[in-house]
């Protein structure tokens, strides 16, 4: 994230204020946080991703993600002339420890970080029988772990494979867009730890959010647009072979 001096001057006091609440271990969001002022999404800039796996590790540490399951993961695609419609894809342990080195150079390789797309018309919230998963007023799809039955219907309904049943808590679990961080003015753990700025949180309701300008000037896509889920994770330069 390239910060100009002006941005640092704005962010530092804001961070100091937010940090005060962090230190006080306040159960409330920062007092200035009004849900209806925000509509969260994310931008993933494919050409910038180097497959280091920082995001997967940071998410696991931040959110106590159980082994073998992933709130975010990275896939590596290998597309050659011969397999445009059937790329080779790997995601060893979700990309958590990076990827094995590639020496030969046939075809194109690229990395695709994936997470919950926080769909505006989310099929997972549609099928929940009791209302344990929902779209928050600020656009984040969340699971209420105290209300969830663990029926796994939402896991089946997600087209992107981003949900799982927590092996210990026995409730549905998934990326929360680090709701506990973004409501305090911080960014998500994955965006914080990404060394190249390939992942950027975006507030689609904030006209001053710099990612707005990016979205207006670049070709961005969502995953599986034919599903009409209203996905809010936008990918820059997404190859057609990505599933």
């Amino acid at each position, binding site marked *: 994230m390239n910060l100009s001096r002006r941005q640092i001057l704005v962010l530092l006091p804001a961070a100091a204020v937010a*940090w005060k609440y962090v230190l006080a271990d306040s159960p409330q*969001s920062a007092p200035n946080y009004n849900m209806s002022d925000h509509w969260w999404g994310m931008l993933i800039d494919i050409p910038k991703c180097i497959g*280091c796996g920082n995001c997967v590790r940071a998410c696991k540490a931040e959110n106590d993600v159980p082994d073998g399951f992933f709130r975010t993961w990275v896939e590596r695609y290998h597309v050659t002339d011969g397999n445009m419609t059937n790329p080779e894809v790997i995601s060893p342990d979700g990309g958590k420890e990076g990827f094995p080195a590639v020496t030969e150079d046939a075809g194109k390789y690229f990395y695709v970080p994936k997470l919950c797309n926080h769909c505006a018309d989310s099929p997972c919230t549609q099928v929940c029988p009791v209302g344990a998963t929902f779209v928050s007023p600020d656009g984040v799809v969340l699971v209420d772990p105290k209300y969830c039955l663990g029926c796994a219907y939402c896991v089946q309904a997600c087209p992107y494979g981003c949900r799982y049943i927590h092996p210990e808590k026995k409730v549905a679990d998934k990326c929360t867009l680090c*709701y506990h961080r973004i409501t305090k003015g911080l*960014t998500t753990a994955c965006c914080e730890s990404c060394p190249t700025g390939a992942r950027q949180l975006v507030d689609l309701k904030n006209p001053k959010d710099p990612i707005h300008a990016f979205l207006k000037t670049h070709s961005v896509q969502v995953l599986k647009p034919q599903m009409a889920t209203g996905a809010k994770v936008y990918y820059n330069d997404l190859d057609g072979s990505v599933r």
Partner: protein
Amino acid sequence: MNGFRDYAHLLRFAALFVIAFLIFWAIRGFVVPPSFGKYGHYRAAALSEIAAHPLHHAGHAACESCHTDIQSTKASGKHASVNCEACHGPQAQHAADPSIDPGKPDTAVLCARCHAVSAARPRSFPQVNIADHSSGVPCQTCHQPHSPEIGATPAGGAK
């Protein structure tokens, strides 16, 4: 009167339903969480419960509020856009209580994660074959991690 007697058993069966429904309605009043339905078909209290999850990463602004010297070193170097916890890991505990040791990243593993050469990485990204490049010498021997370009003037930083 005879006619009613012949229907009476049906009314008893119906009464079962009515009683069951009344009991159900009474229980429902107690059991449904009070914040349910406030913003939608879910328990609104869940929002603040989820927002109260403890932080493990402090966020670079917190680090920079104390480590200003390292920040100025970093800001002029190639790692300017790399946030502190990208290499140092989650440090919310240390930010809350600086006496807690933040630990030192193991450069033998850390640097290679990004910079080990792979044809899969973007061509423009700086990457080397670690074995050929350094023959086992630790990276920080030549590269100052906060401003890694050889020849850049270190102003403090990694001890």
